[in-house]
């Protein structure tokens, strides 16, 4: 069934039909910015990725940057200085609490690059405040969050683009055309990988947080713990309380391609294994393998490069194995094994997909048109679901079976409880 093709609005409309109450104007995201107006963007998260967001959006003549927000006030100064280099006339302000951005009527869109445990709250509160959202991957910290984001995005009729920037590139588009053309035959196996490794940090002492950092706000809905200088910036990724390791960091970038090309539905079973990091304060495994069983398709994740044709030398990759041939891709390149030969392309397969105007440009165009963008929430939540299933299977150390009709694991109460990690007050997940 190709109805669910993510570029279409079928997913959006279907959501409202399910909901039983279809409002005119809501089947597509409501327009709030006319074609000639400027789009006012505010940024949440001023780390490395946040600075990239800032640079991207400030580079568009039809964007005005309203604010830069970070729980560490030391970062917002640097972000504003960077912005001044691009837009000397900027009137952007610095904030430390993103909720102040949501109170401002002039802001059209929120672009966030925060630790994973904040993604859902910022997105949902932004939707509720009528903002469009460009949000970093992974979509969500846990399964319930992903569902709540989907629901809120639809209810408030907003545009959401997940920060899987590779999606917009030429290579992913061409690979999708090749795979869908069935020149490789029927795809029965997909391998995904990203070279992992242990975070080497030992056991640094907890300390007082820097005076500029609101540590309690950084933790947000996550369990309270003392500040530790290793955790932020960046290394929050290696703690289950905030993220899901290298696996969670790269899943969305890598899984994006097979979910786009094959739309395999929800896994029916998942298992995962790895090694516990005993020698460093981190909690996620440096290396992790996961196996997914879809209807008619097996998918494997590894944080080691698999021993398959074309994988050598690629620290990250996606392999499609079909009945007629194979294709190995990474972000920018691909190799096709067909008829006993190696190819870069199969010219007979027509170019059928419209190319992206660029990942951020696509988002801005959708804010103006009300269409859903390339990495929209329907696609994003579908492809992120298996990631959450694998982290639960890993943490419980057992194979889990999934009932797509019920949206739950079969006969495993503990696994079902882990679909959501309760929030620390005063935060709650609007489900």
């Amino acid at each position, binding site marked *: 069934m190709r109805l669910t093709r993510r570029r279409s609005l079928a997913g959006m409309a279907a959501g409202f039909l399910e909901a039983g109450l279809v409002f005119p104007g809501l089947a597509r995201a409501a327009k709030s910015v006319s074609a000639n107006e400027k789009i006012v963007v505010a940024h949440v998260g001023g780390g490395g990725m946040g600075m990239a967001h800032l640079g991207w959006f400030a580079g568009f003549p039809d964007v005005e940057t309203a604010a830069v927000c970070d729980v560490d006030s030391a970062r917002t100064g640097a972000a504003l200085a960077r912005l001044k280099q691009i837009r000397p006339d900027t009137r952007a302000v610095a904030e430390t609490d993103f909720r102040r951005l949501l109170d401002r009527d002039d802001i059209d869109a929120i672009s966030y690059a925060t630790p994973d445990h904040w993604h859902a709250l910022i997105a949902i509160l932004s939707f509720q405040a009528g903002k469009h959202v460009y949000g970093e991957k992974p979509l969500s910290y846990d399964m319930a969050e992903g569902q709540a984001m989907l629901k809120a995005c639809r*209810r408030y009729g907003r545009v959401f683009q997940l920060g899987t920037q590779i999606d917009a590139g030429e290579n992913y588009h061409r690979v999708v055309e090749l795979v869908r053309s069935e020149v490789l035959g029927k795809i029965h196996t997909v391998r995904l990988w990203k070279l992992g490794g242990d975070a080497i940090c030992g056991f640094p002492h907890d300390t007082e947080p820097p005076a500029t950092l609101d540590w309690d706000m950084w933790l947000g809905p996550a369990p309270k713990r003392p500040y530790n200088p290793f955790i932020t910036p960046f290394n929050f990724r290696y703690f289950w309380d905030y993220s899901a390791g290298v696996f969670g960091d790269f899943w969305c970038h890598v899984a994006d391609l097979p979910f786009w090309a094959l739309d395999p539905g929800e896994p029916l079973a998942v298992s995962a294994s790895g090694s*516990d990091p005993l020698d460093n304060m981190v909690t996620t495994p440096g290396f992790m393998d996961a196996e997914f069983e879809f209807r008619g398709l097996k998918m494997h994740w590894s944080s080691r490069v698999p021993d398959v044709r074309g994988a050598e030398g690629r620290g990250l990759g996606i392999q499609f194995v079909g009945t007629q041939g194979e294709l190995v891709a990474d972000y920018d390149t691909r190799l096709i094994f067909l008829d006993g030969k190696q190819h870069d392309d199969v010219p007979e397969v027509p170019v059928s997909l419209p190319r992206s105007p660029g990942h951020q440009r696509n988002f801005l165009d959708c804010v103006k048109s009300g269409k859903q963008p390339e990495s929209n929430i329907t696609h994003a939540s579908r492809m992120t679901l298996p990631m959450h299933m694998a982290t639960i299977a890993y943490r419980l150390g057992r194979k889990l079976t999934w009932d797509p009709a019920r949206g739950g694991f079969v006969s495993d109460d503990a696994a079902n409880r882990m679909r959501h990690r309760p929030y620390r007050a005063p935060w709650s997940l609007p489900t």
Partner: protein
Amino acid sequence: MRLWLALLLTLTAAGSLAADNSGGFVSLFNGKSLDGWVVAGNPEGFRVVDGCIHSDGGNGGDWIRTEKQYGNFVLRIEWMLSKTGNSGIFIRNGPFGGGFEVQLLAPWTPYRDDLHCTCSLYGHVPANPRPDETTLRWRKAEVTAAYKHITVRIDGIKCCEADYDQVPSMKGLALAGCVGMQDSHTGEGEWVRFRNIEIRDLDQDPAFVSSGLEQADPAVRRVAFDAAVRLGAPMVGPLLDMIARGDAPQRHSAEMALAWIVANASAPGATGQAAAVRTLLLARLESGHANDVADRVWAARLLGVIGQADRRTVDALKRALLSGGSESAAALETMQRIPGRQMTDALIGALHQVEPSQQPAMLLALGARKDERTLSTLNDAARSRSEDVQTAAVRALGLLGSAKAIPVLRRIGAGAPDRLRQAVVDALTAILDAKGQDERARVEALQAARELAVTDAQKRALGLSR
């Protein structure tokens, strides 16, 4: 480290003193068959004769090993060699080697040096003192393998001691593997016999496993970690102690090991194990030491993974919640997670025992439980004079998603300032979109939300504007 050495000395002393089969020793050989053993070479190479495992020279048995793997243990074997026999005891050996051989040898034809004589750790550590090697009589060997330390006694006399870190050739070699015996390999007519083979598996001893987790050596910590997880419930107490009082690496390993034990106990069908582990976690939550709280926090969190709430669990969590300590938030997280009427009632009870400043967190947890029984409590709280309590109650009613909350929300919203009214509309919208909501309730919720909508975003979401 010193503690571990003391423990090791106690173990070996106890081992040598105990002449009988008590003290945790398990027989590996039943005297009748080779059940539990695998012959690596020709299956005929080892057979049972006169209640002994017998190997004739030249039969190509290669070696015989246990099916099970052993990391740390005290192994006792009696052996007898023919006149010029040559055999050995293997420890920590993989199916294809890689471990160690304790040499068993006749001292003559040809002469072997101390590095290759009876009791030597063959090729690694010489015998010292070299034991009496007279053949054609029963001898007793006792091999103790405790992490990186190996000791061999022959007829009660310590003749070989080895440490992985002191012997260059032992560096990086395996800390676990099979136990086994070599065949007789000095030709036809020569033979070897083994009997009274018994082992005390130190990895079954929580104190020993804890001593491994306390070591700085990563390789030792890793095997102790795996042993702790395999051991399960008996490790819960020692691991909680380590979480309370260990240094950072110990605490880290202990938290992870305990999480695995709980994960295993939470598996469908593991109800016995779940009950045992839960009881031990509860005991810690109930007692604990006043100055240590990390163990109680971890115990409270992990109870949420195990699930199941009996009276005792509910009471312990409620007490932890009301303690005002760091375990309070973890207890609330777990109480939100575990379904059941008793838990709902306990949370409602707790709500009435705390200051208003602590109530919002409990109200949100109550709402997230999605239990209709919380409705009247949330309704009451929504009329509170504290703005924080009132707002939290309104949000909680949205989380609950019950249509029965619509009249209350409508009433609160009607006269409320914008901020609160906005929260009321969000709650009504959540009720409208709640899973499984019936059509009449949806229409009612929509109507109420439309009447009260404050912001443009709300009006748009409710279909009042484009």
